[in-house]
């Protein structure tokens, strides 16, 4: 399998403070990598190195086999969708203009195509069409986040960087968005780096999960590998709860003694 993104011996420090060291990671094309770790461990930093917003202090980043340093970064970024932590929409642009921002940078001519793309993506992320002419300040937090996601996807990039994109949406919408994202990933073969704080989301969405702590990689593995063989104490602690969650069919759920239905059945028994 081809490598889409490669971190080679990355070190990043601010003044004397080292926030990332000996960071080596290679992400295959078409992988859906979820990144999880405690706050301030360097997830956003890692993400921003992929599109060159942060330069490593030493080491190299390769995107599609090419060293990011040597490339026209502006061109490269247009093929990397970026859904920012806290969404950060352009406040002076309507929903439509926000979503079509990158397509407009790419091709100014084909307005019709862009318009249709906007409608398509709005539908996918679950925004109703009549929000098209609203400004970000006229949207709820969840709606804003969905616009941010649509904006990242609108130019059909090869790589998608998502920094806690579902933070501000409700549980039900989040579930829908997760399904949509999974579907998009399957259909397009896009490579995704997805930062989350929610281990169950990380396990559910990722084809690979990257666990980080204090700027270092704790484990990079498939979800099942992570659950079966946590590599370190940190990972073990992280997945402890998930290992004990049952995904049995509804009718057998209460046979699992770690399932949430157990208490109910017990109380039933005592009657």
């Amino acid at each position, binding site marked *: 399998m081809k490598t889409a993104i490669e971190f080679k011996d990355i070190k990043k420090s601010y003044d004397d403070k080292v926030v990332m060291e000996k960071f080596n990671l290679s992400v295959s094309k078409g992988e859906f990598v979820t990144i999880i770790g405690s706050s301030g461990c360097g997830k956003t930093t890692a993400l921003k190195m992929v599109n060159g*917003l942060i330069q490593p202090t030493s080491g190299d980043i390769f995107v599609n086999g090419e060293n990011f340093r040597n490339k026209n970064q*502006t061109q490269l970024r247009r093929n990397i969708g*970026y859904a*920012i932590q806290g969404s*950060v929409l352009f*406040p002076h642009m309507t929903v439509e203009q926000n979503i079509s921002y990158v397509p407009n*940078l790419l091709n100014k001519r084909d307005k019709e195509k862009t318009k249709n793309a906007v409608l398509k993506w709005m539908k996918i992320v679950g925004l109703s069409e009549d929000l098209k002419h609203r400004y970000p300040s006229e949207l709820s937090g969840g709606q804003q986040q969905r616009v941010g996601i649509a904006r990242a996807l609108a130019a059909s990039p090869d790589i998608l960087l998502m920094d806690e994109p579902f933070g501000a949406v409700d549980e039900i919408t989040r579930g829908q968005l997760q399904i949509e994202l999974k579907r998009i990933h399957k259909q397009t073969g896009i490579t995704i780096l997805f930062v989350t704080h929610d281990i169950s989301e990380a396990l559910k969405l990722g084809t690979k999960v990257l666990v980080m702590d204090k700027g270092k990689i704790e484990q990079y593995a498939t979800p099942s590998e992570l659950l079966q063989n946590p590599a370190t104490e940190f990972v073990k602690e992280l997945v402890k709860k998930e290992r004990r969650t049952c995904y049995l069919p509804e009718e057998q759920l209460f046979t699992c003694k770690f399932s949430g239905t157990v208490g109910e059945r017990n109380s039933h028994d005592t009657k």
Partner: protein
Amino acid sequence: MIKDIWSVFIDRKEFFADLLFEHLEISLISILIAILFGGLVGIFISEFQKTAKPTLGVINFLYTIPSISMLGFLIPFSGVGNATAIIALTVYALLPMVRNTNTGIANVDPAILEAAKGMGSTKIQILFKIKLPLAMPVIMSGIRNMVTMTIALAGIASFIGAGGLGVAIYRGITTNNAAMTMVGSLLIALLALVMDFVLGFIEKRMNKRSVKAKKANRIMAAISVVLCLGIAGGIFINTQQKDTLHIATKPMTEQYVLGEMLDILIEQDTDLNVELTQGVGGGTSNIQPAMESGEFDLYPEYTGTGWNMVLKHDGLYTEDLFRELESGYRDSYNMQWIGMYGFNNTYGLAVRREIAEQYNLKTYSDLKSAASSLTFGAEYDFFERDDGYDALCDTYGFKFGKTIDMDIGLKYQAINQGKIDVMVIFTTDGQLSASDVVVLEDDKQFYPSYICGNVIRAEVLEKYPELKTVFEKLDGLITNSDMAEINYSVETENKEPRDVAEDFLRSHSLLQ
């Protein structure tokens, strides 16, 4: 007063309309240049923040220079007239423009900029798609401040011979016509208010964000840009006439009338077109450099002033020195004195007629015997100056019985009421012609002579020899009492300089 203002305005509608238009033109050009240039500088320093502090420092410094001195500094470089006014106004307009552009851009949320960069925008795209639109409200409020300020400030442009409503204000002040000054000021205020209203409207439209409103905005913007360019462009078309004689006058009532006479006679007797710049602020000190640079071709000047201020001699000028004065002008400046009007605008002593008759007074020396029983009046500073009261008394060996300080504006009243008997005057004071006084002869030449004539660039006279016949007509045309009467008509009877000039020429059969 309100009635006066209204009638002045109605009588001279066209005059004011022209000035208003010119005012708008000068202001708009300065504003447009400041928006473009200031905007560029603002953008530049916001991109390269290291340059921001020094640049703003320099512009701040320029801003603190008082406008009068700024105009003074600029005259040697850009001469008198609209160009200098526009440069000065632009300099003042730069600060709000540069500062607000810089502040507006610098205050854009860095997270938004990072987002735009992360999505693959180029620097230019970030500037035009993100920074400028987000900075626009701050920039707009800077423009709004700057526009009202520029329109108000343009009022002083006439000080250096530029056009605009300042001309009316300045003329009103120098010819004692308060109503004209008021009309000029009110029109400036009105213009500033209207412009502010227009900008407020633009600001409001810009905040409308519906698609339809945006389309309408674009159309309106296009129309107003065309209009502005049209108005601003007018100034350049206007000034492209050939064979035009540029005449300047000093800010004195009599010079306004002389200017009109020159205008009338030259246009009547030759094919030349006259462009008259009336009441150039600072008088000789600003007109002479402009004559040297060829911006002005001729202006009425006084011999004594030329001797002391232009040729920079220290001594007292008397008409015996006229030949030296002429050769000094020819050798140093290649300019010539021509068309000596005949009147002498110098200091003098005036005595109430009954006193003059009682003591048979004709010259200053005659005062010797009578002085001790007379009351002498003059402005406060006359008693302090080196060439003032004491020097006068020493030269003629007299001493007045009593002296009184009084305000210039009140001294004619005082002599007419008999409160004073003798006073210091200017020999062409308008009030002289309405007062029952006798002007005595300065027989020991205590005061320098200030005979009025025209200074013209020799080249111009060579090129247009037909001017000589015009100047011949002016030779010895106007006596001291004529000039006093002329001043009286303008200052006290509130007649127009142009009308007074015409009447005078007609009564001397010089009009065809």
